[in-house]
Each structure stands twice: as structure tokens, then as C-alpha cells.
């Protein structure tokens, strides 16, 4: 799979629906650019500027809780 595929230059907008996030850490662990962190048992967007919009966090989130625009 083409992980970390290059995307458009426009900065990413990462949204987290905290009430749906169950804190599994899958998005955090497998983000190729280390954009995400855990905070209080849920995901937190820590370095949005590093995001390449590879979409893997969104694709792998089991809880429909994170989106990348």
C-alpha cells in the first residue's frame, strides 16, 4: 500500500469527534508523520502542519471519529 502518499499543498484540517473516539491509538501509532498524540485517553491533533493527508488515520479509525480534509 502507498503509505504517506503525497497530497495537495493546502494545509490539512484534521477533525476529531471526541464523543465517538474510543482511544484505541491505531491512528496515533500508524500515522507516518507522527501528527497525532494521545491525551486523556483520546486522540489529540498535535502537529497538524506535518500532515501529508495520506488519510490513513481516517481510513483506519474504527469509530468514524477522525477526518482529514
Amino acid at each position, binding site marked *: *500500500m502507498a503509505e504517506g502518499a503525497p497530497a495537495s499543498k493546502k494545509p490539512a484540517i484534521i477533525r476529531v469527534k471526541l464523543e465517538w473516539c*474510543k482511544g*484505541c491509538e491505531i491512528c496515533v*501509532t500508524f500515522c507516518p508523520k507522527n501528527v497525532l498524540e494521545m491525551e486523556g485517553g483520546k486522540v489529540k491533533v498535535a502537529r497538524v502542519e506535518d500532515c501529508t493527508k495520506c488519510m490513513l488515520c*481516517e481510513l*483506519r479509525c*474504527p469509530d*468514524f471519529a477522525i*477526518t482529514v480534509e
Partner: protein
Amino acid sequence: MFDYLPYIREWNFPHIWCSGCGDGIVLKALIRATDGLGIHRDEAVMVSGIGCSSRTPGYVDVNTLHTTHGRALAFATGVKHASPNLNVIVVTGDGDATAIGGNHYIHAARRNIDITVLLYNNYIYGMTGGQVSPTTRKGDRASTAPFGSIEPPFNISGLAKAAGASFVARGDVYNVKKLEKLIKLAIQKKGFSLLEILSPCPTAWGRRNKMGHPVQLMEWLRDSTVSMEKWEKMTDEEREGKIRTGVLHDVARPEFTDEYAKLVKRLKAEK
């Protein structure tokens, strides 16, 4: 960003699956696949049995039928035979499809009825608390195999192929884009399509087998799944502990509802 909202029953969320359960990942891949294929929601029927995976239909805004344990394929056969125009997708699990529903599984494959089966293999009975299932690996611990399972597991893809399914594939919840592609192929195939989806249970299987964190299960999938192309080039030693993913079997075989239509036509001509 993919907009899932038009396809889900948002009021039922957050869903019931545990933290890190792959079933939600499959659900999303399924939605993207059906969206990509342009399947009309009114003409889609999603049928399930009992278990974690079988809760999937409750979250999808199509005609949904949550049946009795093991019987999804029997109900789905009735739906498809009665209304061949409907797009019938069965969502089931390893226990549901290959233990209590094993007979329907092999016979639906034998008939090669045009039903797409997404069989989530989580290696355990998750909903009931982690009892040993037909796909629990030998040696794995389960609540009813506290000292490790002494039974060999089913090769559920091989079973479908042997029984007559025209399409058999295996995907997993780590390789999500590939999973979406396989779901598309399975739906597009006319005939009985079986897609085994590795979605190991973190709560009831992982925790008992030294992979308690969902991330560990994802890493396990990442490290043990290999593509068909790679598999072909591997030696038997290299294949040890590895799992093939991709299209395992794809042939053209007469499909049940087509055969019935042919029979009707033949009888009309004879009249």
C-alpha cells in the same frame, strides 16, 4: 475526507464495538466500496446473524435484516431467490458462519447463489465473552480453552472454495485500501463471493493471547499478511506463520438464480 454520514444511521453511534475492534474499519471500507460501485441503497439488503460482526447492518442505511444465530445465509437465500434484483450482502463471523451456520455456508457456496459474504474472522466468540471458535488457532487461549485450544482451526476460505464458491478472497483491517478493493470485487462478482476479513478481537482474543492492545493486533496483521504475488515467490519456510491476502479463487460458474430463470424459460418454451 470521505463523507460517511449519508450511509450510516448516525443516531445509533457510537457503535457497540470495543475500542480498537476492526469491525468499524470494515464497515467504513464497505461503505466506501458500495459508494464507489454506485449501489442504490433501496436495492441493497444487508443480512447478518448473531455476533459482533452481525451488528453491522444496524449501522448502515439500507434494508437490513438481523437474523438468528448462523442463519443469515438461509434468510439471504430466501431474499435473493424471491427478488434476484436485490443486491444481497451477508455480514457474518467465524462462529456464526462456520460453526452453527456451517451447513448454510457450504450449501450457499455449492448453489453459487449471487450473495456477497463478508466473513469477519476475529478468531473467537467475542460477543459472548471469548469462547473458542472454529478459527481459534491451535494453542490459543479462550474462555472455554483456558489451557489453549487442542483443536485445529478451519481454513474458512478453503472451505468456501471446495464447496463451490465462484469467488474467494481474504483481506484484513490493517491493509484498508486493499480491503476496500476486495469488497468491491466480491460485490461485483456474480455468484457466491466469500471475502474472509481478518479482524482479530482485541478484547476477548488478543488479551488472552499476548496481543491485548489493538495496536499489537494491527502490527501482527501488518507483519504476517502477504500479498498473493509475494506468497508465490516464498519458500515453504518463509510462508511459516504468514497469511495470504488477496483474491484466492475466481472462476466463472453457473449462478443459482440464473439457473432458475433458465428453468422457467425452458418450461415456457416446452409448453
